[in-house]
C-alpha cells in the first residue's frame, strides 16, 4: 500500500492537506482505558480511525487538528506551544486547524470545565516527542549511523559527529513507515524552552486588524439571514402571528413559526428570513405575535427567593456530605451563626451574540458557528432530524466569548430548522435583546449557613443549598443531591472539618438555567468563603491563620504563604479580605483591599490573586484569564443581575444589564504557583474567590457583612 494515497485520500477529505506526511494519532483500542499511539499507515491497514492527530508534511510544517474551540482562553496558542516544545520546531511551524465536531475521532470535545489543556496535554507531549524520536530514527537509518549520535533542533535532525543535517520534511516518508517507539522520555520542566514562557498568542494579530472570523462574520454562498421574534415569557408557543407588515419590507422573503429544543423542552418563535440582517431586523420589529404560554408560571424574582428561603428553613433536603454530627452540635449550642447568603441569576452576555449558519441538504446538514460543544450539536441535530451523525458536519469558528452559553444546542438547532424550511443556507443572528432575555441563565441560589465555633475552631459546619440544579433541565434525576454541591469548596476543608454537613434542597422553577463561567463554584464560593470568614471572626483568629487549621496540605499551605507574601498581609491595615476556592483542578486565593474614598464610598484599591494550576503552559495567558475572571466576578458581585417580573426577564440590553467598565477596574496582580502537579484548569478558577474576598474586605473595614449579591459598592 502506498502511504501517499492513504494520506491523500484520508486527509484531503478532512483538511485539504496534501502530500506525503508523517501522521501520528491516538486511538482507543477496544476494552482499553488508555489511548494508544499509531501511525496513519498502520491505522489504515487496521481500519482504525485516528483520534487527535498531528501531521508533518514534506515542508516540515506541522498541523494539529484542534479539538477545542478558541473562545478567548488561549488554546490557539497553548496547544502549539506544547507541540513545538517536544517536537523541536519553531512555533510558527505549527499550524492549528479547528476540527469539525466528531466525538468518535476526537473524544469529548466540549470546551468547558476549563479542560482544554488539562484534558489533553499529556497526550500532546507524548505525541510530539514520539514524532521527534521517529524522525531522528529515520535520519539515522538514512545515514546508517547510531541514533544516539543524532539530535533534533529547529525542525532538523543533525548528526553530531559529521554535522550532517536533514530537514524534517525530508524524513517524513521514512519516519511514517517506522514502528512507534515505546516509553519515549519527556523533557523535565527545567528543560523547557517554550512551555512556561509568556509567548505571544498567534491569534492576537488577527484580533487587532479585524481579520479573525467569528461565527457572525462567516459567509457561505447563497446564504440568507434570519432573525426570530421570541416569546418574552421564556416558554410557550405561538398562538398566531400577523406578517403583513413584515412581508412589505424590501428584502424580507419568508415568515414562519420555528421550534427549537431547550434541553428537554421546546420554544417556539417566529422566524423572519431576509436577504440582509437589517431587513430581517426590520421585519422582526414589524411582526405582530400572540403568544400562548399556558402552563408557564408568571414568576417574579421576589417569589423565587422567598420560596428558597422557606425551603431553607423547612425542608430537610438531600444529604451530600455528612461527617460527625453537626445537627446535634448546632441544636444544642448556646451560641451559633445561622445566616443566609443569596446569589442572583446571571446572563452570559458574550460580546458576540448567539448566531449560527446552517445548510440543510436533505441527507446532510452542515453547520458553522461559534460553538463550544460541536459533538453535542452533532448528536442532537442527528437525533432531532433523523440524519446519520456523520452527515451532520459542525464547523467551529472563533468564539466571541462563550462562558458556557455556547456549549448548548438551541441556536444551531433553530438555524437548522430554518434552513430546512427555506431549503437554503441561512445565518440566524440573535439580537442583543434575544441574547439577554431568553436565557438559559446561571441559576440564582440561596445558602443557609449554620456553624458553631468552640476553642477558636469549627465545631460544626452546615450549609444547606436551595437553588435550581442545572441537570434538572437536562432530565437529570431529582431525588439525588447535586453532585456539585461542594464545587468551589476546598477538598482539605471537607477532609479536615470534623462535623460537616452539606445538604442540597431540591428546588425548581420554570426558568431555564445552565452552566456559567466556573459553574456552581461561582456562587458556592461566595457562600462558603464568606461563611468561613464569619467563623474566623467568631474565633477572633486572623482569617488566614484560621483557614490554615484546615488547609494543612503542602499545596494549600504554600498558596496561603504566597498570598500573605505578595499582599503584605502580616503588616496590613484595615480593609483586607481573603478567600480561597477550588474548581476544575485548580485552587485560587485572592486578597482584596478596600478603603473609603473622599465621598465616604467604598473603593477597591487592589486585588492580589495566586493560582495553583499545577503544570502549565503559558504564564501570560494564565494571568490574562485570571484578570478577566476577576473583572467578570466584579460585574456579577457589584453591577448586574437578571431579575424576572411577571414571567419576563426585566433586563434586555447593556443599558439595563450593565457591565463593568474600564473605570471600575482596580489594579490586579496575578501570581502563579510553580509545581509539576497534574495540570488544572485556567479559564474559570479565577472567578469564584473574588466576591467573597471583596465582601470579607468590606467587613474588615466596616464591620458590615454583605450576604446578598449583587450589592452596590457606593451604597455600602
Amino acid at each position, binding site marked *: 500500500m502506498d502511504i501517499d494515497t492513504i494520506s491523500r485520500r484520508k486527509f484531503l477529505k478532512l483538511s485539504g492537506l496534501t502530500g506525503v506526511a508523517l501522521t501520528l494519532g491516538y486511538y482507543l483500542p477496544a476494552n482499553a482505558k488508555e489511548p494508544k499511539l499509531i501511525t496513519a499507515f498502520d491505522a489504515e491497514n487496521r481500519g482504525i480511525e485516528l483520534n487527535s492527530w498531528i501531521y508533518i508534511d514534506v515542508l516540515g510544517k506541522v498541523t494539529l487538528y484542534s479539538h477545542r474551540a478558541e473562545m478567548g482562553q488561549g488554546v490557539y496558542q497553548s496547544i502549539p506551544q506544547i507541540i513545538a516544545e517536544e517536537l523541536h520546531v519553531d512555533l510558527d511551524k505549527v499550524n492549528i486547524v479547528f476540527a469539525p465536531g466528531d466525538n468518535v475521532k476526537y473524544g469529548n470535545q466540549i470546551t468547558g470545565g476549563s479542560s482544554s489543556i488539562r484534558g489533553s496535554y499529556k497526550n500532546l507531549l507524548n505525541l510530539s516527542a514520539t514524532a521527534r524520536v521517529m524522525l531522528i530514527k529515520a535520519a539515522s537509518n538514512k545515514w546508517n549511523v547510531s541514533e544516539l549520535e543524532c539530535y533534533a533542533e529547529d525542525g532538523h535532525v543533525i548528526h553530531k559527529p559529521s554535522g550532517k543535517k536533514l530537514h524534517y520534511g525530508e524524513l517524513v516518508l521514512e519516519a511514517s513507515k517506522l514502528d512507534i517507539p515505546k516509553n519515549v522520555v519527556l523533557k523535565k520542566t527545567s528543560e523547557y524552552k517554550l512551555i512556561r514562557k509568556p509567548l505571544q498568542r498567534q491569534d492576537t494579530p488577527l484580533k487587532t486588524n479585524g481579520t479573525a472570523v467569528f461565527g457572525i462574520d462567516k459567509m457561505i454562498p447563497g446564504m440568507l439571514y434570519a432573525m426570530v421574534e421570541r416569546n418574552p415569557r421564556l416558554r410557550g408557543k405561538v398562538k398566531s402571528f400577523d406578517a403583513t407588515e413584515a412581508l412589505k419590507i424590501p428584502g424580507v422573503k419568508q415568515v414562519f413559526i420555528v421550534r427549537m429544543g431547550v434541553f428537554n423542552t421546546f420554544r417556539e418563535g417566529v422566524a423572519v428570513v431576509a436577504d440582509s440582517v437589517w431587513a430581517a431586523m426590520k421585519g422582526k420589529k414589524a411582526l405582530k405575535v400572540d403568544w400562548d404560554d399556558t402552563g408557564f408560571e408568571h414568576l417574579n424574582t421576589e417569589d423565587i427567593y422567598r420560596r428558597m428561603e422557606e425551603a431553607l428553613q423547612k425542608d430537610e433536603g438531600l444529604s451530600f456530605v455528612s461527617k460527625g454530627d453537626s445537627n446535634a452540635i448546632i441544636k444544642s449550642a448556646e451560641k451559633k451563626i445561622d445566616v443566609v447568603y443569596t446569589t442572583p441569576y446571571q446572563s452570559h452576555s458574550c460580546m458576540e451574540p448567539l448566531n449560527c449558519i446552517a445548510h440543510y441538504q436533505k441527507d446532510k446538514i452542515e453547520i458553522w458557528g461559534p460553538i463550544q460543544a460541536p459533538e453535542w450539536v452533532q448528536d442532537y441535530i442527528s437525533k432531532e432530524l433523523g440524519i446519520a451523525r456523520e452527515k451532520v458536519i459542525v464547523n467551529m469558528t472563533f468564539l466571541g466569548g462563550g462562558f458556557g452559553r455556547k456549549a448548548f444546542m438551541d441556536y444551531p438547532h433553530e438555524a437548522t430548522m430554518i434552513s430546512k424550511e427555506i431549503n437554503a443556507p441561512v445565518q440566524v443572528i440573535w439580537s442583543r435583546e434575544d441574547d439577554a432575555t431568553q436565557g438559559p441563565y446561571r441559576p440564582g441560589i440561596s445558602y443557609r449557613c449554620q456553624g458553631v465555633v468552640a476553642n477558636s475552631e469549627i465545631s460544626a459546619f452546615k450549609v444547606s443549598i436551595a437553588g435550581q440544579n442545572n441537570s434538572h433541565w437536562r432530565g437529570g434525576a431529582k431525588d439525588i443531591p447535586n453532585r456539585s454541591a461542594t464545587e468551589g469548596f476546598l477538598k482539605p476543608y471537607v477532609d479536615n472539618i470534623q462535623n460537616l454537613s452539606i445538604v442540597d434542597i431540591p428546588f425548581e422553577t420554570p426558568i431555564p438555567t445552565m452552566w456559567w463561567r466556573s459553574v456552581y463554584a461561582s456562587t458556592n464560593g461566595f457562600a462558603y468563603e464568606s461563611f468561613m470568614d464569619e467563623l474566623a471572626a467568631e474565633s477572633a483568629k486572623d482569617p488566614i491563620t484560621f483557614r490554615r487549621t484546615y488547609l494543612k496540605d503542602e499545596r494549600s499551605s504554600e498558596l496561603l504563604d504566597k498570598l500573605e507574601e505578595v499582599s503584605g498581609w502580616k503588616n496590613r491595615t484595615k480593609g483586607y479580605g481573603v478567600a480561597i476556592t477550588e474548581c476544575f483542578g485548580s485552587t485560587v486565593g485572592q486578597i482584596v483591599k478596600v478603603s473609603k474614598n473622599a465621598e465616604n464610598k467604598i473603593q477597591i484599591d487592589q486585588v492580589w490573586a495566586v493560582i495553583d494550576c499545577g503544570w502549565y503552559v503559558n504564564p501570560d495567558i494564565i494571568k490574562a484569564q485570571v484578570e478577566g475572571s476577576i*473583572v467578570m466576578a466584579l460585574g456579577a458581585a457589584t453591577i448586574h443581575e437578571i431579575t424576572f417580573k411577571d414571567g419576563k426577564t426585566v433586563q434586555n440590553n447593556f443599558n439595563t444589564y450593565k457591565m463593568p467598565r474600564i473605570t471600575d*477596574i482596580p489594579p490586579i496582580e496575578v501570581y502563579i504557583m510553580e509545581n509539576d502537579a497534574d495540570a488544572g484548569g485556567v479559564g474559570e478558577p479565577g472567578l469564584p474567590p473574588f466576591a467573597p474576598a471583596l465582601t470579607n474586605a468590606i467587613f474588615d473595614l466596616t464591620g458590615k457583612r454583605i450576604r446578598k449579591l449583587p450589592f452596590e459598592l457606593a451604597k455600602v
Partner: protein
Amino acid sequence: MAIINLKINSKDYSIDVDPQMPLLWAIRDFVGLKGTKYGCGIAQCGACTVHLNGQPVRSCSLPVAAVANKNITTIEGLSDDNSHPIQKAWIEEQVPQCGYCQSGQIMAAAALLSKNASPNDADIDAAMQGHICRCGTYPRIKRAIKKASENKP
C-alpha cells in the same frame, strides 16, 4: 431603497440600500468588511466603533444616509499590516482574549491618541468607558494605550 455613496478607508462604494439602515450593517453586509462588530445595537457597548472624519462614532446607531460621502475609517483601514501604534501596543501587551470587542476598542484608542499624544488615566477612562469587554481585558487596554503613547514617534 436609495443609492448611497460611501467613502470607506479611502475607497468609494455605491450601495442600494434602505437609507435608514445603520452604517454598521452597510459596512458588514454591503461593503463586506466584517471587522466592525455588532454588539448591542443601541450604542451601549462600542463594538461597532468606526471613525467618521476622524471622530469615533457608533456605527450601529448611525443611519447610512447621514454619512454619505463622508470619510469613514474601519479597523481594516487603520493599517494594512498591524503597524498602527495602537495595534502594535495591543500585540505587545497581549490585550485580546476572545477579541470580539477589540476592533471597537482599538478604533476608540486610536482616535484618542490622534488628538491627545500622551493621555493620562483620566483621559483614557473618558475615551474608553463606552466600550464593554466581557473578557475583562481592561487592565491591558490601559497599559497598551500608555505604551502606544510612549512608542509614538
